[in-house]
């Protein structure tokens, strides 16, 4: 908050100086150019500060809920992360935050410096198994994050989420020497079990993202 006020004051003062530093005929030209230039230079910081004030996000980067609305603290969340150029059409402007009724409550257009887009669906309570929570999150968003899965004896393999297959994003070699897959994170850490075997806590954050090898 204090840096927002300080930046605003600096922008105003420099603009005023540029206004009075030139002759009367050129004051508007000078002040307007300086104002826009100053605003462009400080734009990222001002936007970030304002976003933090208006939406109250979790600020502790050691918390699995980091970057999520603080109103979701103590609830379960499912995030679908896509490289920004490969997002489903309606989720390409940032990371959308959708509550359990399917309403978008906040869009973070600077998540991971804008390189990651997608959505987090949160506010769930009482789910004990990962697959149930995942299905609930998919249902809330309609067809936006529909799953294509293959069922194996050892569990489910996610082929695509929202129509996005990992091998459309990364090059996958025919001999499997290189490839990509949907990676499951449990509270920010690589999950040692698949989604169908994952046991949840009250505030678990499940994240799906594309990883390559």
């Amino acid at each position, binding site marked *: 908050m204090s840096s927002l006020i300080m930046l605003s004051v600096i922008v105003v003062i420099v603009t005023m100086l540029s206004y009075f530093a030139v002759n009367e005929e050129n004051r508007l030209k000078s002040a*307007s150019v300086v*104002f826009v230039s100053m605003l462009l230079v400080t734009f990222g910081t001002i936007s970030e500060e304002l976003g933090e004030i208006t939406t109250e996000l979790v600020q502790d980067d050691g918390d699995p809920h980091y970057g999520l609305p603080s109103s979701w603290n103590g609830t379960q969340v499912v995030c679908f992360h896509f490289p920004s150029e490969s997002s489903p059409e309606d989720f390409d402007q940032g990371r959308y935050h959708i509550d359990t009724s399917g309403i978008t*409550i906040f869009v973070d257009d600077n998540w991971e410096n804008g390189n990651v887009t997608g959505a987090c669906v949160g506010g769930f309570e009482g789910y004990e198994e990962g697959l149930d929570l995942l299905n609930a999150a998919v249902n809330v968003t309609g067809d936006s994050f529909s799953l294509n899965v293959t069922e194996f004896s050892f569990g489910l393999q996610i082929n695509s989420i929202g129509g996005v297959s990992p091998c459309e994003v990364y090059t996958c070699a025919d001999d499997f020497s290189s490839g990509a897959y949907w990676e499951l994170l449990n509270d920010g850490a690589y999950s040692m079990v698949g989604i169908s075997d994952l046991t949840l806590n009250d505030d678990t954050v499940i994240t799906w993202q594309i990883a390559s090898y």
Partner: protein
Amino acid sequence: MLFDAHAVTLSPSEQFVLDLAIVSVAIASLLFTDSKFKSKNPGIIFTIIVILAVSGRLLLDPIPNVQPVTFLAIMVGIYFGISYSIVFATIVTLSSNVMLEHGIWSNYQIIAWASIGIIAAFLRGQFIQNNKLNITNVAIFAAFSGFMFDWIVSLSILHNVDTSFFLIYLLNGLPFDLLHAGGNVVFVAWLANPLSELMDRHTSLTSPEVVSELASN
């Protein structure tokens, strides 16, 4: 020997400087050569203004929310009137969104730019005083128009999000609104006077003096 020009890549800042230079040269060429242009057909200068708006919006796309369309919508409203403003907003929005991105927000952009032009047409008497453009009044309206445009276009998110989120969305967009408003004032400060002389030359039929003159004949 052939060279592959498509293989030459520029950084975003290099591309922006180049784009800005192209827009500047285009505007300067228009203003400097226009004095030799004798046509009184407003359609010709209107077409040039539309092209300037579309190309300016596309070329200045790297700068968030700074583009000449809102300023030109105001000028079209003042000098060409309501019907031209609606045509201007529609053509510029649809043409530039073919390149940028077309969607439901296009309708809101058309409504917003047309509204700005229409209001400018209604306030013409405040903007043109003693046959001269009142730059201060136009600059104030241009700054206001930046906010007005953004807020009208922001209504498009209500198709996807709850109304309770709308105020937060508007607050988060304040830096964008300020850039739009500031950018509009820059265009007014640097281009309004030369452009008003140019438009005045080609739109004499819209001048109240000429209209009353024609009526008395």
